[in-house]
């Protein structure tokens, strides 16, 4: 062991199948604290599955996952305690439709961290203010634009003060003109030192924000590296093909 702090996230030999369909076939990944890692790869390559495994929303078949040095895949680990430290934001927002914005954000701090309603709501409001959503605190999700809903979902995850934030294609469900406001939020978080693993189809965004880009193919991380090299001089043929298709589709 070295004296360096444990990586924020370490994945070793992760395997996951759905029935007969192997989706992840030996994923190894290290994410340092304050690092931003982008996962790219074709649709169905397992990006979402990988993120869901890290958040223990899927049971894994083999391998180990460590968060800040603690093995979260160990038997008998308290999954609720682990999930508190890992935030996840979904493509479809998944806000609670029967709760106001303020209730959405303050629910977990109140019920999980046992904060008083007053404290939880005050802190939620501060966060909402920071992300330009304070005037929406009393609204219900169906009264918000997609971009606003996704920003609320991000705030809801941040309210638990996670050590690690997982973002799963958080702009794919948004109209193009709403993408920028959400990506700006993520840039701000990256600048603030948040450790993030981001599955995305927005290559320009990945190039802009990622410290490292990982290309998922055939259930493995086929190639990884700094964004400049990955996008300008990919080593693997499969990576080249993938990027060529993306360029042809006008998304880089």
């Amino acid at each position, binding site marked *: 062991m070295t004296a360096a702090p444990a990586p924020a996230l370490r994945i070793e030999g992760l395997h996951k199948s759905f029935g007969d369909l192997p989706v992840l076939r030996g994923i190894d990944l290290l994410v340092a604290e304050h690092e931003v890692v982008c996962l790219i790869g074709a649709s169905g390559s397992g990006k979402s599955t990988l993120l*869901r495994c890290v*958040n223990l*929303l899927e049971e894994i078949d083999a391998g180990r996952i460590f968060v800040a040095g603690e093995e979260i895949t160990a038997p008998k680990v308290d999954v*609720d*305690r682990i*999930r*508190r430290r*890992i*935030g*996840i934001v*979904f493509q*479809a927002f*998944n*806000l*609670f*439709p*029967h709760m106001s914005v303020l209730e959405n954000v303050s*629910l*977990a701090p109140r*019920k*999980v961290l046992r904060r008083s309603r007053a404290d939880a709501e005050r802190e939620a409001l501060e966060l909402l203010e920071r992300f330009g959503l304070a005037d929406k605190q009393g609204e219900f999700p*169906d009264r918000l634009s997609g971009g606003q809903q996704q920003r609320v979902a991000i705030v*809801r*995850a941040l309210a*638990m003060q996670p050590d690690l934030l997982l973002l799963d294609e958080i702009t794919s469900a948004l109209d193009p003109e709403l993408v920028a406001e959400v990506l700006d939020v993520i840039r701000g978080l990256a600048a603030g030192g948040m450790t993030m693993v981001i599955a995305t189809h927005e290559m320009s965004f990945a190039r802009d924000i990622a410290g490292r880009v990982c290309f998922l193919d055939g259930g493995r991380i086929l190639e990884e590296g700094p964004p400049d090299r990955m996008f300008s001089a990919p080593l693997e043929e499969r990576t080249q093909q993938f990027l060529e298709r993306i360029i042809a589709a006008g998304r880089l």
Partner: protein
Amino acid sequence: MATHGGPPTVTDLDVGGVDGPRFVGRRRQRVSWRSTAIAAASAVVFFGALGWIVVNAPGWDAFRESFLDPRIFWGSLPDVIKGFWTNVRLFLIAEVLILVLGLLVAVLRSLPGPVFFPVRLLATAYVDLFRALPGVLVIFMLGFGIPGLGIAGVPVEPFFWAIVTLTLLYSAYVSEVYRAGIESVHPSQDAAARSLGLSRFQSLRHVVVPQAVRRVIPPLLNDFIGLQKDTVLVSFIGVVEIFRTAQIKQAATFNFTPYLAVALVFLVVTIPLARFTDWLVARDRAKAAAGTR
């Protein structure tokens, strides 16, 4: 639009112009007046014919005497209504218990994982049993059977067992309604709650069940219309309620008119509730349609 004062232009004569909508509106009014008139006329003819057949039936006079005696009707109505008060009490108490027990059974049945298998099995067996048995049978077995055992401390009052029977019977149905509601909440809602660190129970309590309950209010009301009527079942074990009161009157007068009073009381109470339920369903459907736009 039209240039007023000038000669008519093409736009002035356009169907969509000034006169267009008003003309269409007037016509629609005329059409709806006509269809109302036709509906009314056909109703008069239909029910008139039906009435004529009934009144001219060979047994009509005997029927009128034993079912439609106004003196007996008005004489029995006050007691019948008084008896109905017992049904109202049964209904209100049972309804509260059913709402709680039904939800509990539904939640137990939707607990995932092998650990909860025995709980799920028990809950499922309960639901199957009480949905399969005819209500009359259950009320006899519980209302006469259990007090008949003579175990010390076990209540013997029919009213108590009436409540127990109605609660057990209807909770089985209502739990299925709740369960359908719980299953209709998309799993991503539970995933979002769990990912925030909420426990399985907290996710159910704060995220899944509140959404489920909102969705099942109309079908729940439908079940309560059924419950309202089924409160007469308890007359079988000697609870003096509306139906039993009518039976007593019938036996005393050798006349069936008191049952007409019972029917009328149920119509007056149940139809508004049924209409209200229909209105709720229609409103929800309109809302859902607006939501998917």
